[in-house]
């Protein structure tokens, strides 16, 4: 009897083990040649749904630019736009949301590239044959069909050039942003590469404000105390600007410390008008979603074909990467942006 029991036991384990499905190994080729065919359709239906997957869904900048443009586009095209994601900055929740929508096979996914950690789930969507476009920040580990976003190196370079100009090639400068984030590090680099060319410009360091206004203000205040001759601060996330401006105001250094930063939200524009911030590099966020959604549409409806059957042939009929460029704002044109 015992031997039969142990035999059954072993069988059980063998069955169990063979029922194991190992996860795919990453680092495979980026080639689309043998990937899943994209799901296409011949007619446009009012029910076809394009889903935006983001996080911090209620953040004003996202709502007013990305989401507004997306909704406008969907209305124009006569299709459905859905916006999903957690209200907090919660990546695991964004991933969980994404995963639960994939089985429903919507017409396309517009994914806010919030964190490299979402690469896995992007690949799941792509493997399910759903057109997937990443916007804002690129996700290197993912096999998304396209990326559309700003060129952060360029944004840094523009800030660098302008900073050199206003400081007349001389002075102490710092950069501030979220350290470790790929796009911001690219921005820092763009800034630095310009500064390096001017020996009279002194680069003091990179500072992490964790996308927090109060922290940006505190760091600026500390820097002003540590370097009374600080000449310029360059910010790289949306909250850097207001924070830096606050401390510069409180230290009575308006005009003495030059500020350049990213984003062109109402608070940034106001500060430019007041003369506290000298230069803004804005993103064309509306394009992220409007053109991103359009690309999804084009994939689905085979707007342009490169072969008899692109889906089967493994051809992705949209740009691989779209750089949207930047908007430059200073006192000379700020009024045109203020609503």
């Amino acid at each position, binding site marked *: 009897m015992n031997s039969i029991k142990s035999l059954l036991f072993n069988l059980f384990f063998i069955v169990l083990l063979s029922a194991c499905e190992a996860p795919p190994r*990453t680092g495979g080729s980026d080639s689309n040649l043998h990937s899943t065919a994209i799901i296409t359709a011949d007619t446009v239906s009012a029910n076809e749904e394009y889903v935006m997957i983001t996080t911090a*869904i209620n953040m004003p900048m996202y709502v007013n630019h990305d989401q507004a443009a997306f909704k406008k586009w969907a209305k124009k095209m006569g299709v459905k736009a859905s916006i999903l994601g957690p209200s907090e900055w919660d990546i*695991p929740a964004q991933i969980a949301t994404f995963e639960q929508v994939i089985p429903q096979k919507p017409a396309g996914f517009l994914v806010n590239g919030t964190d490299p*950690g979402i690469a896995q789930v992007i690949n799941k969507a792509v493997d399910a044959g759903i057109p997937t476009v990443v916007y804002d920040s690129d996700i290197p580990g993912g096999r998304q069909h396209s990326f559309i976003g700003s060129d952060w190196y360029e944004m840094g370079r523009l800030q660098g050039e302008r900073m050199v100009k206003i400081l007349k090639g001389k002075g102490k400068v710092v950069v501030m942003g979220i350290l470790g984030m790929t796009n911001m590090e690219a921005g820092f680099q763009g800034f630095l590469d310009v500064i390096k060319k001017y020996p009279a410009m002194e680069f003091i360091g990179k500072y992490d404000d964790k996308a927090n206004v109060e922290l940006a203000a505190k760091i600026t205040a500390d820097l002003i105390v540590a370097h009374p001759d600080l000449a310029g601060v360059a910010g790289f996330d949306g909250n850097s600007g207001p924070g830096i401006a606050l401390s510069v105001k409180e230290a009575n250094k308006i005009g003495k410390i030059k500020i350049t930063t990213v984003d062109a939200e109402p608070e940034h524009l106001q500060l430019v008008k007041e003369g506290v911030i000298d230069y803004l590099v804005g993103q064309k966020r509306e394009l992220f979603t409007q053109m991103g959604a359009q690309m999804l549409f084009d994939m689905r409806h085979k707007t342009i074909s490169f072969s008899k059957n692109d889906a089967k042939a493994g051809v992705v009929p949209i740009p691989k990467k779209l750089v949207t460029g930047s908007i430059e704002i200073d006192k000379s044109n700020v009024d045109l942006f203020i609503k």
Partner: protein
Amino acid sequence: MIKDRIVTLSATILLLCIVMSFLFPSQFPTVENFSQIMLNLSIDTIVAVGMMLLLISGVFDLSVGSIVAFSGGLAGYLMYYHDVNFLVAIAAALSGSLLIGFINGFLITKIGINPMIQTLAMMGVVRGVALMLSGAGIQNFPYEYNYIGQVKILGLQSPVWYMFAIVLIFSYLFKNIAFFRRYYFIGSNEKAAHLSGIEVEKMKLWGFVIVGLLAGIAGILLSSRLGAALSSSGKGLELRVITAVILGGASLSGGQGKIVGAFLGAAFMGIVGNILILTRVSGYWQEIILGVILILAVGIDQLIQKKK
């Protein structure tokens, strides 16, 4: 009374599933959808089992979310920056989580710090450490590590199996092992428990250690599943888990609750989450609905207490 909750909660879940199957026949009642729901609630449930233990004894722990982030963060940090073998990294992460639980338990039982305050403070401290370790995020874990959380057995991804195992094991323990039964007595009447020879302080300390370990396990599974240690891992976990556990029959005053209730409570919330996504309810409503569920859960709990 508790039996009632298991029954009523199960019935409610069943009802929700039936209704949803009618409304979304092609999307809700599918194997894919259900396995996705289970996968997403597996992390929460593992921690909820620990939280149920604590609530049975009359306390709770607000630092669990941070421990989840810390655990994955430490493992990731060791593997990525120091090329540590994945098994060693896991051992380190779990040891660290145990230690955090021990510190919580020690400060609460031996020094006498109020549990809510202690674990609230620890929540911040541990999250800070987790952020330092994981920075803006760590990816590119070794394949073996990812395998743990991504392998599928009989079609279900491993965290789901871990969840079932932990729920079953702890259900058994709480019914049949004296050590775990003691928690009911402590929660029901701490003074009487002391006078009955139960070493209340020791038991409470162990409780926090066990929760720390479970949160650590959850953290490994989460980061393994995502293939990344994220700084926002475990955010908001504690409140979700406490909600789930109370829905599942625990009482804030202690002495009540069954382990399977933790699973049912988490399942309920997972299904509600899935419903919100399927019905495309916007993010604004999510917060409101989850808040309302918590109020209902606590409110009903209070009414039942009053009736007694």
